[in-house]
C-alpha cells in the first residue's frame, strides 16, 4: 500500500535535517504504529506525506499503491487515497462543517471521474456516520472545528475519514487531548473502518491508544530514522521501560 524508501527531509526555511532515511512498508489491510520520543520526526513524516509546505525532500520516495506521492499536490494525494488525521485539527471560521464535508467528498469523486453525490444520499450518509461517532447535528452545522472541544475535533477528523473512505490513513497523535471515553469512541470509529483494502499508520506517544487499535507492526522512530521494528509487544516494552534502553541498544 505505502512504500517509503530512504526518505530524507529538511526544513525549507532553515538548514535543519529532520528525516534521515526513513524506510517503511505498509501492506494492504495492515495497521502500523510509529512511536518515538519528542522531536524524532514522527509528525514531520505525516506532514511530508500529506504534502504540507515548508519541507524539502532531499532524497527518497513515497509510493502509494505504486504512485509517487511526493510529486502530487496535497489534493491529488487525497484523491489517490491518502488521509491525514491532524494532531491539531484546523478551525475554519465561516465554512460550515457540512459544506466542508460535502465539498471534500465531491471534489474527490470528481478527481476520480465519479458523479457528485446527491444531497439526499450525502445527508443520509453523514448522519449515519456522525451518529456512531456521537457527533450531533449542531456540530455538523457549526463552522469547521470552531468551538469544538479537543475530543470533538478528533471525532470530527474520524468522521471526515469515514466519509472520504481513504485507502491509507495516517493518524497523527489522535490520542492527544482525549479522555478515556473519547479515546474509546475514536478507536471504535477507526476499528470500524479497518478492512482488507485499507491500511493505517498510527503515530502515538503512548501504548494506551494501541490497547484499543491493535497494530500488526510497531516501529520505533528516533533521530529521523526507524530504529527498531517489532510486534505489538514492542509498544508494551516502551511503555514499561521508556525509550532509553532501545536507544542504547541501537547506539542512537
Amino acid at each position, binding site marked *: 500500500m505505502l512504500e517509503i524508501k530512504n526518505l530524507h527531509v529538511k526544513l525549507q526555511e532553515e538548514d535543519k535535517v529532520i528525516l534521515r532515511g526513513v524506510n517503511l512498508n505498509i501492506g494492504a489491510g495492515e495497521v502500523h504504529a510509529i512511536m518515538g520520543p519528542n522531536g524524532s520526526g514522527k509528525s514531520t513524516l505525516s506532514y511530508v506525506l500529506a*504534502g504540507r509546505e515548508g519541507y524539502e525532500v532531499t532524497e527518497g520516495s513515497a509510493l502509494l499503491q505504486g504512485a509517487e506521492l511526493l510529486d502530487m499536490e496535497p*489534493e491529488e494525494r487525497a484523491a489517490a487515497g491518502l488521509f491525514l488525521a491532524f494532531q491539531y485539527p484546523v478551525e*475554519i*471560521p465561516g465554512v460550515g462543517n457540512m459544506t466542508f464535508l460535502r465539498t*471534500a467528498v465531491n*471534489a474527490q469523486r470528481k478527481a476520480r471521474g465519479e458523479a457528485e453525490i446527491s444531497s439526499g444520499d450525502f445527508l443520509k450518509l453523514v448522519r449515519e456516520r456522525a451518529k456512531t461517532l456521537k457527533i450531533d447535528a449542531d456540530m455538523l452545522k457549526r463552522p469547521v472545528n470552531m468551538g469544538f472541544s479537543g475530543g470533538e475535533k478528533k471525532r470530527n477528523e474520524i468522521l471526515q475519514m469515514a466519509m*472520504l473512505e481513504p485507502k491509507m490513513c495516517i493518524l497523527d497523535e489522535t490520542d492527544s487531548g482525549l479522555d478515556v471515553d473519547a479515546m474509546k469512541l475514536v478507536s471504535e470509529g477507526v476499528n470500524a473502518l479497518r478492512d482488507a483494502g485499507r491500511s493505517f499508520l498510527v503515530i502515538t506517544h503512548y501504548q494506551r491508544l494501541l490497547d484499543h487499535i491493535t497494530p500488526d507492526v510497531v516501529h520505533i522512530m528516533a533521530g529521523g530514522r526507524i530504529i527498531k521494528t517489532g510486534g505489538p509487544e514492542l509498544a508494551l516494552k516502551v511503555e514499561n521501560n521508556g525509550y532509553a534502553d532501545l536507544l542504547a541498544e541501537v547506539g542512537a
Partner: protein
Amino acid sequence: MSLQSRHRADLAARLGGQVPPSAGFTAHARVRALARLQAMGLPHGRDEYWRYTAPDLLNGPAPSLGAQHPQGQLGAALNPLVLTFCDGVFDAAASSDLALAGGQIALLSRAQTDLHFAQDIYGSLEERGQTPVARPFAALNTALAQEGVLLHITGKVVRPILLNYVAKSDNCDVMLHHCIKMDAGAEASILEQGGLGARGNLVIEADLAQGSVLHHIRSQTSDDAALAVTHLFARLHGDSALKSFTLSAHGRLIRNETVIELLGDHASAHVAGASLIAGPDHHDDTVFITHQGRACESRQVFKNVLKSGAVGVFQGKILVRQSAQKTDGYQISQSLLLDGDSQFLAKPELEIYADDVKCSHGSTSGAIDETALFYLQSRGIARAQAQALLVLAFMAEATQEIANPDLAEEMRAQIEMVLQRARL
C-alpha cells in the same frame, strides 16, 4: 492657483457648458444644486475625504468601455419588475410594464408635474447630506441627471424592482437619479445590476416613513474599466429599516458613498459591501451614518479581497447626536490581501455626543490562512476551490446582511464566478 480656484476651473471644464433643465418639478432643486456645486467645486486630492481616492479619473473625460462581463438576471426566480437603462437612457423594450401592485413607478424624464410625490425628495436628501462632508458628484448629479426612477411604495410590494443597467458606448457619461418614497408600513426590494456606463454617476434618495422596510441589493461587477461614483442618501423615520448590500468587482475606480440619517426612534440601518479587486483597480466605500433618534441601530460591514496592486479604501463614520441615547452602532471593515502588493486604507470615525451609547468599530487586514488552505487541500479540495471557500467565509458577515436567502446565494455564486474569472 489656489485650491478653491482650481476646483472651479476643473468644474467649468467638467460641465462643458451643460446647464440644468429649467422646466418641471425638479427645476428649483437643480438650480440650487448647481449653486452648491459651484460653491464647492469638484473634489481634489487634497480634500480630506479624497485623500485616499484620487478623483482625477472622475474629473477628466469619460473613458472607453472595458471588457464586459454579462450576468444572468438578478433575482430571476423572484420574477422582478425590470427597468432597463442603456447608457442611462430608459429602454422600454427591455423593461417590464410599469404597473406595480403596492406602489407607483414613474420615470424622471417623463414626470413633469409640479405636484409630484418626489418633489420633496429630489435633491433635498442630497442637500442635507452635503453637511458636514461635501459630496460634489452628488450635487452634479442632482443638477444634471436627465433620467431615473421615481418610486412611491404605498404597501408591501412582493416583486423586487430590478434596475438593470447596460453600458454600450465608449466615453459615455451616465447620470441616473432615483427617488424612493416609502409610505408608513411599506416594504420593497430594489435590486441593481450591470454597469451604468463608461463612467457612471448614480444618486439614490430614499425616504423611509414610520415602520417601512427597504431592501437594497446592488451588483456592480460587469465592466473591467468602469468608473463609477454612487451615492445612497437615506432618511429613516421611527421603526423603519434599511438593508443595503453591494457587491463590487472589476471596475477601474468605484466609489460608493452611503449617507444615512436615523431620525426617528428604533430605526435600523444596515450597510454592507463585498468587493473583489485586482490591481490597478481601486475601490472606495465611504459611509456616514447620523444617529438622531433614540435607540436606533446601525451596522456597517465591509469586506475587501485585494490582489496584485489593488487598493481598497474604507471611510466610515458614525455620528451620534446628543438626542440619540441607547444608540447601538457597529462598524467593521476588513481586507483579505491575497499577495503583498495590495493596500487597504481604513479610516473609521466615531463622533459621539450622547452618553448612553454602545458603539464599536474594528478594522483588520490579513493574508489567507495557509494552514486552513492546507487542511482543505488535504481533504481533496483543489487549491483554487479551497481559496474560494475561504474567501466566501471571509465575505460571510457581509453576505449574511442580505435578508432573502435566494439572493444571498446568488451573491455568493457571483463571488465564486468573479474569483474564477479574475483568477484571484
